[in-house]
């Protein structure tokens, strides 16, 4: 009697468990897995943590409005810890073990280069949300940040114009790695094409994490005091920017004398700096938090609420910036492409991505180019205000098509504007 009861109960519970399992696995099939590959520790955590939060926020937003093709998105977050080889390892894990359908991630160009072979080998799909140096076009990657002609070139053109101060002499200052070196190569060729002599260009590099900018500021001062209007183009990356701008303020180099335009400094990087002495220095991006339009108001509010709800550190002072906007656009475009392709199959989604449009927080409709995997984006130039936000002083009339192969690098005219299909 007892035994029989026991067997009954056991059978029942096994059956129940089995049923539970099947329902669980059925549930699993009802979600689409999405990988998030951003450094949450190490030197790049400062910038990339906010991108992870943006991605999670966007996924939450999509899930609340019904998911993708009726399925919920399920985020798989990994931490490659600012360690470039680890990026490759983690992306392999995401693609072959977790079997994600798409990955949103990477910040530095070196991390992107590190994961590329993995994505090519396993035919994965990566959305890269940060401005970069171009010179790359891969079938498995969509670039939602700016190419040089969507950021660097317009910024230099602005400084050459009357309103930008008609600069005649140039300091190209950067951190010593692939992105600043390539960007400055392009800029040097561009300046030469505009008739700037080699003697009027000074190129300087500092190691990653450099924190003593006294000598460099003194050099800039000297270089600028030689009779021609001078401007500084900064591709300094990461937290070195804070000591650089502090020193700039203390040395009394005002933006009206020597303007500094930066390509990797946004709202987030300026959070740790007293911006009062920096008023008027510039940054070029495809989005600023200070842009006023309903999409942006919604985007900022969504992120603030997200920060509060998830109790992020300093939740009351969070800001939005360009790579966050690019992440947001990227996830939404991927969703649209999946819905168009009616499948999450990588090749089908890549085909469906061509020509996708999305009303971006920048106030313009961002469009994925039919061929070259880059977005058409507007360009904004902003001046730092005393509260750390940017005041837009110049913008393009509309979105600009990206030219990943810069015409200012010899040999690029022969490169195709379409990724090789395999």
């Amino acid at each position, binding site marked *: 009697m007892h035994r029989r009861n026991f067997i009954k109960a056991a059978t029942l519970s096994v059956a129940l468990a089995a049923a539970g399992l099947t329902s669980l696995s059925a549930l699993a099939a009802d979600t689409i897995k999405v990988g998030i590959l951003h450094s949450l520790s190490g030197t790049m955590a400062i910038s990339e943590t906010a991108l992870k939060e943006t991605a999670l926020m966007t996924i939450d937003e999509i899930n609340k409005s019904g998911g993708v093709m009726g399925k919920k998105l399920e985020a798989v977050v990994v931490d490659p810890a600012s360690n470039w080889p680890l990026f490759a390892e983690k992306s392999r894990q995401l693609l072959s073990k977790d079997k994600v359908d798409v990955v949103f991630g990477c910040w530095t160009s070196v991390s992107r280069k590190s994961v590329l072979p993995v994505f090519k080998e396993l035919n994965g799909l990566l959305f890269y949300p940060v401005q970069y140096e171009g010179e790359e076009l891969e079938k498995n990657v969509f670039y939602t940040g700016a190419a040089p002609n969507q950021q660097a070139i317009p910024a230099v053109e602005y400084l050459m114009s009357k309103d930008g101060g008609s600069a005649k002499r140039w300091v190209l200052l950067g951190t010593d790695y692939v992105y600043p070196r390539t960007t400055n190569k392009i800029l040097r060729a561009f300046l030469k094409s505009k008739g700037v002599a080699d003697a009027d260009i000074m190129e300087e590099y500092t190691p990653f994490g450099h924190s003593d900018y006294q000598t460099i500021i003194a050099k800039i001062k000297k270089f600028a005091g030689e009779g021609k209007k001078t401007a500084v183009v900064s591709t300094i990356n990461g937290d070195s920017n804070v000591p650089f701008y502090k020193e700039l303020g*203390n040395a009394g180099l005002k933006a009206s004398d020597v303007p500094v335009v930066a390509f990797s400094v946004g709202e987030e990087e300026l959070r740790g700096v007293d911006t009062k002495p920096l008023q008027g220095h510039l940054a070029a991006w495809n989005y600023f938090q200070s842009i006023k339009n309903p999409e942006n108001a919604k985007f900022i509010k969504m992120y603030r609420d997200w920060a509060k709800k998830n109790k992020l550190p300093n939740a009351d002072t969070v800001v939005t910036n360009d790579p966050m906007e690019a992440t947001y656009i990227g996830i939404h475009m991927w969703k649209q492409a999946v819905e168009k392709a009616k499948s999450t199959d990588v090749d089908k989604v890549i085909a469906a991505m061509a020509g996708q449009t999305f009303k971006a927080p920048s106030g313009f409709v961002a469009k994925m180019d039919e061929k070259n995997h880059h977005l058409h984006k507007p360009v904004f130039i902003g001046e730092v205000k005393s509260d750390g936000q940017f005041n837009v002083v110049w913008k393009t009339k509309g979105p600009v098509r990206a030219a990943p192969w810069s015409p200012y690098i010899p040999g690029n005219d022969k490169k195709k504007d379409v990724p090789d299909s395999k």
Partner: protein
Amino acid sequence: MTEITHTMTRYLLSLLLCLFAVPAFAALDPALVRQLADEDSDIKIAAIQQFGASADPEAGRLLKAMADDELLVGDDTVFRFDGEQARDAASGALIEPVPEAYESITVNNRIRAALSNALAALKLFDADRGVRLTAAKELQSNAGLEVAPILARAMDKESDSEIQALLRQAHALANLGNPDAAARLAAVDVLSDSASAATRGLLLPLLETANEPDATVRAAAAQAVKEIESRLAIGETLAKMFTGISLGSILLLAALGLAITYGVMGVINMAHGELLMVGAYATFFVQTLFRAWLPDYLDWYLLAAVPVAFFAAALVGMLLERTVIRRLYGRPLETLLATWGLSLVLIQAARVLFGAQNVEVANPVWMSGGVEIMAGLVLPWNRIVIVGFTLFVLALMWVLMQKTRLGLFVRAVTQNRPMAGCVGVPTGRVDTLAFGLGAGIAGLGGVALSQITNVGPDMGQGYIVDSFLVVVLGGVGQLAGAVWAALGLGIVTKFLEGWWGAVIAKIVVLVIVIIFIQKRPQGLFALKGRFVEN
């Protein structure tokens, strides 16, 4: 055609506005005010310059509002908010209802420069000497021809000799663009007495025929540039020396704590950088407390941060010593690994407590900006304060080590532990206190670092190599050695950076240190005396 009608309506409107103007406000020319909001920067600047020449205090208030981004434009009217109400910028009349769509007037660098010139020009006639002095200083860098007549007027009225001299300079600067060659020559003459790099920069274009048709002016300018350059040369060399000393003082502050824990006690403490971080976060913590409870004394938070950082870092240090390091004395490899692990623990702890992002530690007002000692030599206050602070910490350490009982014990224990124990020195407790002292000094270094670099969980990592470099180069066990090594490294690095750039300088310095250590493994100064080596 439309342009003309547009201007006409503008004038009509302005006339109407003038009629309804509130008498309490000295009304400004509304057409000119409207010009401030024009799309074209040239038109904006023309209006700003007219206001600047008007000597009207109301115009000063308007331009100030524009410089502060307070001027808004909507419904073709320039206005600003006075609390909840919108007031017309020209007349001061209330605007009801508030325009629905409006934006602030774009002020770019070019316009900001014009604004600051115009504002300074307006202040030249202020009754207060200080205001006039700042205004005259403001006009030293980029006074244009349009302010020349105002400057001439101000010079006539000015009685103060210091301001008078500044005005003369500014007037000469403004006249460099004068179409009359005689006026330019006179200007160059005045400027040859100057000793500023900015003036030299303005004179240099006059050396070229394309910019300066008159040969006498060219010759005078060449002479003036030469005179200014000779005055600047001394300042520039001194400036380079100072940057070297300043870098040296930072290296020394970072390394002093290590000079005790590694140099004197022999503990290879890989978590030293994290003790710097603890000091920096303590500074941040004190700043936050001051913001919340004593906002009036916020400028002095740094003074309170000094003892707090010392004790916070010392406490952490003593805790590490008691729990981990004391079990590993005499086992350098294990100590190295254990302290490396501890450093990771501390970094993660900071990340959990304060977040992965850098936190903002503001420079107090008295540490911002710089002081011009002589021509071409501007010393930033934060650097000066840090050099002074380093001297203070050094003195403190010397007194502690040489003049106190604790210092005596520490020296005794490190020289001969068993013997010190025999004569009754509590060696265990001395170890803890000495380690705490080293950690506390590192905390003080953190206070200084928080003023010039980023405060974040990883900040200590960047200083650990430099700190070991200083201690090893100076000679292990020697405080004086650390001082000389830090200063030497600082000055050499800065001169190399000037020649070859920061990346190469770093490599060259490391190569020099490697060669030096090979030739002289005991460092700059070697300890003399009888030691018990195990």
